[in-house]
């Protein structure tokens, strides 16, 4: 910008305010860059209703800060990263972990594997001047291979695994509920979104037994990689480095949670966002646009279309419906596209006929919308059996780590179309038909919700109000 306008010297120096830098596990605040536009404040309070950021003090000493000038990691911040997504000056940014990834790749003693989330492939192209909504799955894999990752896997594989666990949990809770068990909590809420998990731990701790106990796909991937896959490859846990490419800022925080570590070694070591990956590709002088299309590695690179649609609002619950329907009714689904679950409205509802049993489904994206549904549950007014919640408007495609879309909703719609296109192009579109998932249960886990699955793929939630 300065070069463009021919500015080489600042002629009018003025007084500048300075403020300490605040680093959290996921978001950095560098207030010296802040121009007080207060978009982050609007996002945090009005859209997400998290209420962590506000302008404080007066006049020249005004800054945007959490209450009592605490650091973010002491606040109720969910790390959804929507403040980062709307910040025009980079005063709010994600923690840059690309250096850690480069160091791991350069270490010859480590086996470095990578997983990429579904929403990444629908947006990464934008960083390389491709048309919005271009799917770059093949080029993404090729770029990661050239960066030097030993195995390139897909988070969608773990998404299929999530559906097996979460879908089974839904049916089990539903079955007990229909049998008249009053202790069973319904609706069941999805638990893939780490910002959403932290949100209810802070704001609705009394309901922490309602969300599914299933871990997020990222953490399921890490857990399986460092047990099943490490064993298969004969690599020791500490020599295996798991890197995630995520559309999300909160995933950086999620992988550091204590319950996702074994003897201090995390299931997922490093998380970088779509934007960071783009920067890393450019840094490595890889000509992304001219890369060939390549395929994911096996066994953890195979996924169904159900895993892919995790990347958009409504996708997780649609994936769950595809599997839960067939397990429950033991019949094949007459159709695979559930248009009633798709769309961009903040809160949606639909009833799906499970062969005579009407299942009421709710969908919310954006934490403000999630709060509305939760308050209904609290008041006993909710009639849903299952609710999908995503923190970011649009779901993961609108994540805080995605290429900046500057609030342009048409970009989100195009990314969503790309996700559904990838789903349609898949040979397998139901999670329980993924052959590598079937094999994983046969060889390693037994069956969904088994003791081993419970240990490796489920988690618990904590009251964070104190």
């Amino acid at each position: 910008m300065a070069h463009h306008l021919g500015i080489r010297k600042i002629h009018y120096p003025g007084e500048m305010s300075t403020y300490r830098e605040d680093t959290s596990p996921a978001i950095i605040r560098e207030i010296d860059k802040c121009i007080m536009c207060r978009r982050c404040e609007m996002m945090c309070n009005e859209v997400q209703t998290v209420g962590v950021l506000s302008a404080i003090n007066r006049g020249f000493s005004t800054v945007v800060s959490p209450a009592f000038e605490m650091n973010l990691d002491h606040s109720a911040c969910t790390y959804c990263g929507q403040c980062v997504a709307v910040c025009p000056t980079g005063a709010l940014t994600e923690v840059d972990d690309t250096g850690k990834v480069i160091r791991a790749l350069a270490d010859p003693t480590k086996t470095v594997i990578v997983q990429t989330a579904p929403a990444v492939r629908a947006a990464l192209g934008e960083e390389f001047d491709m048309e919005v909504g271009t799917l770059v799955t093949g080029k993404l894999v090729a770029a990661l291979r050239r960066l030097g990752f030993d195995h390139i896997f897909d988070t969608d594989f773990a998404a299929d695994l999530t559906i097996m666990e979460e879908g089974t949990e839904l049916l089990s809770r539903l079955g007990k509920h229909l049998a008249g068990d009053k202790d069973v909590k319904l609706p069941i809420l999805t638990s893939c979104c780490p910002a959403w998990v932290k949100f209810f731990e802070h704001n609705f701790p009394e309901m922490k037994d309602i969300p599914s106990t299933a871990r997020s796909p990222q953490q399921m991937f890490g857990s399986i990689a460092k047990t099943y896959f490490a064993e298969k490859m004969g690599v020791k846990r500490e020599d295996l480095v798991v890197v995630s490419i995520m559309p999300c800022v909160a995933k950086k925080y999620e992988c550091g949670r204590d319950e996702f570590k074994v003897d201090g070694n995390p299931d997922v070591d490093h998380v970088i966002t779509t934007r960071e990956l783009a920067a890393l590709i450019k840094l490595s002088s890889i000509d992304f646009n001219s890369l060939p299309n390549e395929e994911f590695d096996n066994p953890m690179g195979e996924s169904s279309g159900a895993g892919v649609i995790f990347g958009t609002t409504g996708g997780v619950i649609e994936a769950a419906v595809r599997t839960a329907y067939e397990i429950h009714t033991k019949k094949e689904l007459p159709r695979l596209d559930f248009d009633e679950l798709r769309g961009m409205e903040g809160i949606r509802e639909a009833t799906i006929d499970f062969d005579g049993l009407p299942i009421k489904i709710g969908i919310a994206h954006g934490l403000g919308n999630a709060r509305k549904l939760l308050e209904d549950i609290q008041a006993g007014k909710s009639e849903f059996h299952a609710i999908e919640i995503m923190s970011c408007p649009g779901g993961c495609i609108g994540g805080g780590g995605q290429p900046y879309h500057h609030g342009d909703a048409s970009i989100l719609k195009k990314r969503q179309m790309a996700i559904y296109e990838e789903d349609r192009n898949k040979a397998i579109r139901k999670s329980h038909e993924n052959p590598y998932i079937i094999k994983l249960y046969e060889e390693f886990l037994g069956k969904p919700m088994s003791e081993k699955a419970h240990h490796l793929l489920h988690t618990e939630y904590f009251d964070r109000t104190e």
Partner: protein
Amino acid sequence: MPEIKLAENTVQLIKDVCAEFENKESELINVLHKVQGKFGYLPAEVQEVIAKELKMGVAKVYGVVTFYSFFTMIPQGEFPISICMGTACYVRGAEQVLAEFKRQLKVEVGESTDDGKFSINCLRCVGACGLAPVVTVGEKVFGRVAPNQVKKIIAEYRDEINNEEAKTA
């Protein structure tokens, strides 16, 4: 996060004030005003309760508290002394009066004496410009205050304190 846990009746008191204003977010300033009137100041723990009752972020509450100079997070003395720094009072020597109070009590503006009896604050115009310079102690207003009267005003309250203590002893 709050380090001190508020007593249950204190929490109830704050909740009652919020309820009086129908727990409306738009009534935040009125709520803060009234709660500060009861406690003398607005510590972090109190702000957290208010935020919860009015269903808004604590950061917003803190933002309002730090914006208006009327609100304070520092405990006030039993006898809060306010010196008017409005135009009329200022030109008639309020600054010298303030300096004398600071000298006598050995505290700065916004602070309380070690025994917690007195605190000094500045305010802008109490609407009694005819009496400039004006000093208020609690609800009581002193007009036409000259620096040499400061000692007497403080002594008046010291006497009151001593009498109270004599009675309870």
